[in-house]
């Protein structure tokens, strides 16, 4: 269960959705603020400094993507965007602009709570740069010695595979768009070569996953990208 009192700002112009989110989040111990427009959201953000923002991209007064950009410009507050069906591209853009996660409407409540939990935890323990060894389940990555083991057995990775894995474990549980991964691993001039990612992810799965057909670490976010899951399968 999440630490009590984490303050969540919910921004949506649909009163029914707002009500459902408020009720559920409050029931799970969150301190919930709500806003029905971009202007209200900015005001609430400025005065109350929430720990997390749940942001619907389809706001009446301001482009949700712009809001993401404005907030990200001066704070790392985790942002989970909510996007309607038919606006799939917007969520990818929101992620590229720095949003932490997304949910497509209609979404399940437990899914929403899981994303909120992950985003808050991620914010509380930023990139594991300090820890020399990353551990999740039976996977261990020694970042100093560039050594990867699964259940104590060393696994040989190619430089590309290792670079990709490192990108994943630097942002555990965060969805990474194809563009982000390409730029992080290959460099800022890349972004359209996403078809290679599939190949490298597939080979990483073959080496790291117990069942590559049903991965537990390297999950695909169809149409968006991939995420490294630290949740037990």
């Amino acid at each position, binding site marked *: 269960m999440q630490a009590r009192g984490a303050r969540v700002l919910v921004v949506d112009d649909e009163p029914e959705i707002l009500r459902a989110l408020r009720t559920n989040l409050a029931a799970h111990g969150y301190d919930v603020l709500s806003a029905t427009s971009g202007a209200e959201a900015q005001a609430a953000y400025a005065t109350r400094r929430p720990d997390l923002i749940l942001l619907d991209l389809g706001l009446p007064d301001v482009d949700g993507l712009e809001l993401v950009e404005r907030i990200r410009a001066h704070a790392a507050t985790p942002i989970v965007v909510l996007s309607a069906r038919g606006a799939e591209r917007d969520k990818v853009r929101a992620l590229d602009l720095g949003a932490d996660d997304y949910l497509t409407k209609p979404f399940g409540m437990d899914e929403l709570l899981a994303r909120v939990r992950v985003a808050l935890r991620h914010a509380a323990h930023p990139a594991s740069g300090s820890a020399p060894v990353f551990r999740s389940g039976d996977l261990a990555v020694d970042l100093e010695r560039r050594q990867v083991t699964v259940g104590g057995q060393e696994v040989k990775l190619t430089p590309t595979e290792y670079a990709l894995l490192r990108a994943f474990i630097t942002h555990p549980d965060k969805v990474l768009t194809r563009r982000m991964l390409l730029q992080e691993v290959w460099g800022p001039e890349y972004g359209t070569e996403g*078809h290679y990612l599939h190949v490298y992810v597939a080979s990483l799965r073959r080496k790291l996953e117990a069942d590559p057909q049903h991965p537990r670490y390297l999950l695909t976010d169809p149409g968006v990208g991939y995420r490294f899951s630290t949740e037990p399968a």
Partner: protein
Amino acid sequence: MSWDQDAASPTAPAPVWRGYVAAVAGVVLVSLAIGVILSWARIANVSMLYLLVVLALGTRFGSGPAVMASLLAFVIFNWYFVGPAHTLTVADPDEWLALLLLLAASVVTGQLTAGQRRRADEAHRREQEAVQLYAVGRWLTSAPTLDAALRQVAEYLGSVLQLQLCAILLADEEGRLQPRAVVGSDTGDGRETPRWLLAAEGVPSTPAGPRRWVRVVPPVRLAAAPDAAAARRFDLPLRAGPRVLGMLRVVAAPARAPFTREETRLLEAAADQIALAVERVRLQAEANAAEVLRRTDELRAALLSSISHDLRTPLASIKAAAGSLRQHDVAWSDAERDAFAATVEAEADRLDRLVGNLLDLSRIEAGVLRPEKEWYPLSALVEDVLGRLGPLAADHPIAVDVPDTLPPVLLDYVEIDQVLSNLLENALKYTPPGTPIRVAAHVEGDMLVVEVADAGPGIPAAALPRVFEKFYRVTSGPGHPRGTGLGLAVARGLVEAHGGHLDVASAPGQGACFRFTLPLGTPPALVPVAEAG
């Protein structure tokens, strides 16, 4: 515009008085000739020479002059050449017979030849009329637009009938006459076509009586100029049944003779043809509008029936489940409570899919679909789709033959995901549980070919050409068809937006194989990360 005044005209019949003059002259000449001949030799039946004159007169001038010549010949011959001379009495009964025969033969010959002549003229005029009417009819049917046709007819009539002006006015929606084609030479002194002549006005409510010429009376205010031309202006109503569709308005050229009966007939026939053409165009437009309405109605009816069923079914389930949960007088077990909640979620998902398809369809139809393409390996997409369908596909063994080695394709992930999902859902929906489904892909030329085949009952031949129509559902077997009739229409629209094709091959009992293509290209290359990275 000016017209060629040299209108083609037939050999017009000569004026009647000339015929009688010719008759007198002919008979006198022949009489002189007979006198000369008789002074040389006594020739029996020399009077037959008169028949030549009568024949000629009948041919050239008709029966009147021919009969007159016959009588004149009879009298003159009797007077001068039949004894006793210079009397009208006849001594010899033989001569009587000859004279009477001459008279009878002349009259009959004259009548016959004149009749012949009349018929020849008539035939010529009819032919002329037929040619002119044919020309009018051809303009009316062959011109690309009604206005072009009207203009050509007006030009033609103006030229054939030597009109100063020929205008075709049609009633607009409010029943006011609007000029649609105006052709004519300027009035003699260079003024513009008088405005009153073309001024819009109401359709005269002439009763459906016999057609008659209607003289145009210029409005008083504008008729200040003494108007000799007024007598040359005529209106012919364009009628379709009892309704007056418009007006054929003509002004004869100043120097021309009054319209003959044939010319009047031509104008009337032309007016009829114009009216027919106008009516035909109107009916065609009405038929088109009716067809559009009918199709819209059909579509609306299909949409309503589809929506009323496919939206209401999940809504009813959701409402029932939510209502049950709120019944506080019933002590639901946790499992029951959970089942209700699961129903609400599952049915909401179903609604979401339906709305998604409707949304896609409307975007496809509005032409606002712009795929945002990226390079993807198809195998990854197929994996994702199958993973997402998971529970839905539990009853069907699905064989996948999409090698990782296939070249990547430039596609909009969301859209092609939708295509594959729709094809797979279709196969799952229309085949009995346990029916194997196969997803395969291969390269053919510069296209990637993807196939979704099932071993189900197949699609009836009659339904095959229609399965991609929206709201069309194959109704095989009892019960309500299960689909929304949107999935395949959406799939085809999305594939076509990618520059590919979606088709189906099926035979009853042989299963159905949906097959779509996506164009291949040259993906950008990526080098492996160096060791030091």
